[in-house]
């Protein structure tokens, strides 16, 4: 079996983002960038399935500017076999990304596509589900456990009420939760080896799909700043403040 894993380059999750003064977006110059965290879980799960012998090949794909290739390199360093980099210079909405991925799926014919459940930059939570609909494949979203069988997968999903177990037929889409696994670090020898693994270049606008953005970003603003409060010196003072000042208990 074969897995296609999609990875996205985003501002590192530890960075406190700064909104541009002109409201056109957030600062990205000289800001640390990394793979979107749940995408690391998607790569890890694919590699684990390969190590178990059930999966023969893991292909990592990213869509984005030149430097987005780093995320594919990282996936190759932890065990993906080869990469695809679909070059795109500007932001593409999840709908356009899903269309590009569909094109690649039709060419690569994987049995599964793994993605992170959500990107931590635009927080859209759409791409996996959209791709599933376009391919008419079933999906397991917010996945925290995967059990791959011969023709299907049993998936445990994290939902608001608790946990849900479903079985989906292959081919299928899986969007991964942070609790699915513990992504490994790449060892130095594997990072060196990954440099020799092939990354196939493609160009988004040459794929023959409509990736025009439909949503116009009018402005980006900082949220209202929350004023810092006071420190209380004892539990008794805290309870008294909550009762008599804030009047919330």
């Amino acid at each position: 079996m074969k897995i296609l894993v999609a990875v996205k380059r985003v501002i590192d999750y530890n960075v406190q983002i700064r909104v541009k003064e002109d409201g056109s977006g957030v600062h990205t110059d000289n800001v640390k960038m990394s793979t979107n965290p749940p995408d690391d879980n998607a790569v890890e799960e694919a590699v684990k399935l390969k190590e178990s012998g059930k999966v023969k090949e893991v292909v990592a794909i990213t869509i984005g500017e030149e430097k987005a290739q780093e995320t594919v390199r990282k996936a190759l360093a932890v065990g993906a076999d080869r990469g695809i980099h679909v070059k795109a210079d500007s932001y593409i909405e999840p709908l356009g990304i899903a269309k590009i991925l569909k094109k690649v799926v039709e060419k690569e014919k994987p049995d599964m596509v793994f993605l992170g459940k959500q990107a931590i930059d635009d927080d859209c939570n759409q791409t996996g589900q959209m791709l599933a609909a376009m391919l008419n494949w079933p999906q397991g979203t917010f996945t925290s456990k995967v059990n791959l069988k011969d023709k299907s997968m049993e998936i445990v999903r994290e939902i608001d009420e608790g946990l849900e177990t479903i079985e989906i037929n292959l081919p299928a889409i899986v969007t991964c939760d942070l609790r699915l696994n513990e992504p490994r670090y790449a060892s130095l020898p594997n990072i060196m080896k990954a440099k020799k693994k092939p990354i196939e270049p493609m160009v988004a606008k040459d794929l023959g799909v409509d990736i025009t953005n439909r949503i116009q970003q009018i402005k980006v603003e900082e949220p209202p700043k929350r004023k810092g409060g006071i420190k209380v010196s004892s539990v008794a003072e805290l309870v008294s403040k909550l009762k008599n000042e804030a009047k919330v208990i």
Partner: protein
Amino acid sequence: MSLLLIAEHDNSKLKVFTLNAINAASKIDGDVHVLVAGSGCENVAKEVAAVPLVKKVLLCDSPNYKNYLPENLAPLVTKVAEKYDNIVASANTFGKNFMPRVAAALDVSQVSDVTKINSADTFIRPIYAGNAFATVKSNDKKKCITIRPTSFDPAPKTGGSAQVEKVEAVAVPNNSKFIKREETKSERPELGTARVVISGGRGMESADNFKLITAIADKLNAAVGASRAAVDAGYISNDHQVGQTGKVVVPDLYIAVGISGAIQHLAGMKESKIIVAINKDGEAPIFSIADYGLEADLFKALPEFLAELNKLNTIQK
């Protein structure tokens, strides 16, 4: 044209966040129609019909929709959506699961997690874990929108009498199967709608120590929350997680215990009216947003907190 909203329910009762979504939807288009798709869910349709903001209820009662499998539900919504300009659902694990499938089928770019409606086509939504807010204008003729329920008040529940119209089920792909749902049952209020939330983090050190939190939760009639670190460590189940990839809560009082305050956690609670932080590390970032900070060892502070609450004559419920 009218607006189509997809109700969330458990086949016998409407989930409360649907009321918040109905209120939000009515600000986009006053002609709100609600689709209730499920199995044996006639009572839910009746409940929705009583909501005064709802102008029409569409009931699709079929075993196909019993467990809201998105592979089955999305084609139905897509079909019904033909007659509508706006398709709306809550931005929780229910809406997030099926709505992008509908948007893709309709070739629409979805607007996710809307927190404010500026006009029929312009919305505000948080990005970067709520560290920025984007004002966006959708240029799609048909729009698929998910609403952050906690950013809107619930619509009044009674007084209306909308007409209930039956809708035929559509073909299903038979490529997915529901096996089971393990819901965490609790006597306490729901995390998403509780007036008071008390959350524990890594500082709790064990699942057993969460008893210190639940004792106070019971006293305050509060819901229990947790940071991702506490859930990852197995102290408490995933449905308690507050944050960017967990739940967003906006209670009157949020008490963060042993939580340092990573931006991903703050994303889920910083709109709370009053925030209390109890942490032994005086430099913890949570203190920078807390209205009342107590620098203390939680294992001493929590029992004292409970004792102080016990001294009070009255506690708001």
